[in-house]
């Protein structure tokens, strides 16, 4: 922690960055902090409650952050995947951000929780994590904590979904999407949703009816998840923001697994790895594109 606070103070004092985006103690658990004054660097914390993916604040449509100047951002390995995604998709330049990565031993599901990490309290996204020691960084802090416990809730749910008949699966997702109120909190919280104009906001032509009916909700959620195929970094910010508690993370993971199977690609924290749906290859499995 001290290492993190000292580094943040130094980056600000040296003028290397104008803001350090990290975590601080808030009224309801840990929350994002925007440190612009080196004297305030002592507010920074890092522990298992640091659930939020702060890379979301680097998204260029967040103009209120851009105006602060160059940022340094505190990330876990999973969050670094989002930074790599933004670089890969030419949204930010590598040199425009200072990446302070912290070796991670898993996080809780909600930043306001204060429980010990166990197989029930740990986030489902930590299961099978291969980026506990990130590769994308300017500074890498902390010791590597021991292997975290595994929350198998999501993999069990995926196995259950796969055993369902198409009709059962349709019913399951209908039940989830019927609750959607089309507030678009999922989109706004997502680090990878950076379109200047979302297709859902387009009125001419109106691709998807804006009213929250089951039919149009399904269209919206399918469109979103397909636009995220091979791009989603599995940070679960969409699910955490959803006021209706829809299993958005499960949906995205389901598609991510399909992409992995078909394209042998997993969202990673190396910006040089080409996106699976953005490359041309003579080895492509589909005849029409060769």
């Amino acid at each position: 922690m001290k290492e993190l606070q000292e580094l943040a103070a130094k980056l600000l004092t040296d003028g290397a960055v104008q803001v350090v985006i990290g975590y601080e103690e808030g009224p309801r658990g840990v929350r994002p902090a925007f440190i612009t004054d080196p004297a305030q660097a002592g507010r920074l914390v890092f522990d298992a409650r640091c659930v939020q993916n702060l890379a979301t604040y680097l998204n260029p449509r967040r103009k209120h952050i851009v105006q602060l100047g160059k940022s340094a951002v505190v990330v876990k390995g999973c969050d670094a995947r989002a930074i790599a995604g933004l670089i890969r998709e030419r949204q930010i330049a590598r040199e425009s951000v200072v990446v302070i990565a912290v070796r991670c031993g898993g996080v809780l599901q909600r930043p306001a929780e204060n429980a010990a990490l166990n197989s029930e309290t740990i986030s489902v996204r930590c299961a099978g994590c291969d980026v506990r020691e990130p590769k994308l960084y300017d500074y890498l802090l902390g010791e590597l904590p021991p292997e975290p416990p595994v929350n198998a809730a999501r993999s069990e749910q995926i196995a259950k979904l796969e055993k369902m008949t198409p009709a059962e699966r349709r019913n399951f997702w209908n039940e989830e999407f019927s609750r959607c109120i089309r507030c678009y909190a999922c989109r706004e919280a997502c680090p990878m949703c950076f379109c200047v104009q979302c297709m859902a906001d387009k009125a001419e032509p109106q691709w998807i009816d804006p009213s929250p009916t089951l039919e149009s909700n399904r269209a919206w959620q399918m469109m979103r998840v397909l636009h995220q195929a091979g791009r989603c970094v599995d940070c679960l910010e969409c699910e955490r923001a959803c006021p209706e508690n829809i299993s958005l993370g499960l949906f995205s993971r389901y598609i991510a697994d399909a992409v992995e199977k078909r394209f042998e690609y997993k969202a990673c924290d190396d910006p040089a790895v080409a996106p699976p749906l953005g490359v041309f290859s003579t080895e492509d499995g589909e005849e029409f594109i060769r």
Partner: protein
Amino acid sequence: MTQRFLSHADLGALVAELVAAHTRVIAPVRAKDDARQLDYLPIRALADAALGVALPRRSLKEFFLPPTEVLLSYRQTKEGVEIKEVPTQAQPQVILCASPCDAAALEVVDKVMNWEYRDELWFGRREATTIVSLLCSIMDSSCFCSAIGLGPDSSRGSDVLLTPVEGGYRAQVITPKGEALLKDYGSAELSAAAEAGAEAAQLAARARVANNAPAIPAEFSAWLAENFDHPIWKTMALRCNGCGACAGVCPTCHCFDIVDEHESSEQGVRRRNWDSCQMAKFTLHASGHNPRQSQSERFRQRIQHKFSVYPRRFDEILCTGCGRCSRICPGGMNLPEILGELMALAKSEPEKSEGSGQ
């Protein structure tokens, strides 16, 4: 106002009779997707309700202003366009054990719904609904109803207010609607012990929320209006990621969008859907210009509308202190904390700010 004593059995019998008469009864129940959370949902019997556990995730708003509703349907015929409006009369419903803040919110929103235009769909449902509130004993650190001038024992917006006492409830009958609902239930006799118990419960509830935030002074709305360009707005909402989840769960956010949806080239429906000022599209002009360019400006709008525009127009704060926005916010924005900062600033810089402009 009259008072009655209702035993638990009396309340159960009331629910049973209403349900038998096909009146929809809505109460807090355990959420299907998360047993730690509550939702306001229709119940079949009092035993379905979960009382005194937690504030339901969403307010009562959706029972009066649904997330989507059809206003009219239209059809092109040889003679012209045929328009069918939806009926404004609603089915009777009873909301049981509402949180006092949620009941109060409806009265606050009534003002705008009856401003330059009377919203007949809203008032159709308001008139068909009887609200029985329950003294709140479930507040947490994000609650600040007392700062708004309400409280866990506020009867505002309620037809009946229940206070738990030994063996049942003290029922304070606030309106003729409440009188009609309870006339055959319980007894008009309230023992001195029950009376004392109810008063003690009220005092205890008030004490639990009183220190969460300082009361909002009357001059705060004018200060906000004069400090629209204060530099604080630029840095106040950095962690806000503009998701608008706050507006969805807010009992007083009432903005909506109206859209026509074609079912075919001949016919379609006109709907209204919830909308939120936290979205960039909310103020996007047809020209492409957006007067609220960044999230700082959109968040300022949220505070200004609730604590300055609405109070100046309707003499009401557009907030009940329920704390839902702070609980849902994925960015950790916290309204009592933000109001505290702004009120401190209003005290230290009472004059109009020079501002930095936008």
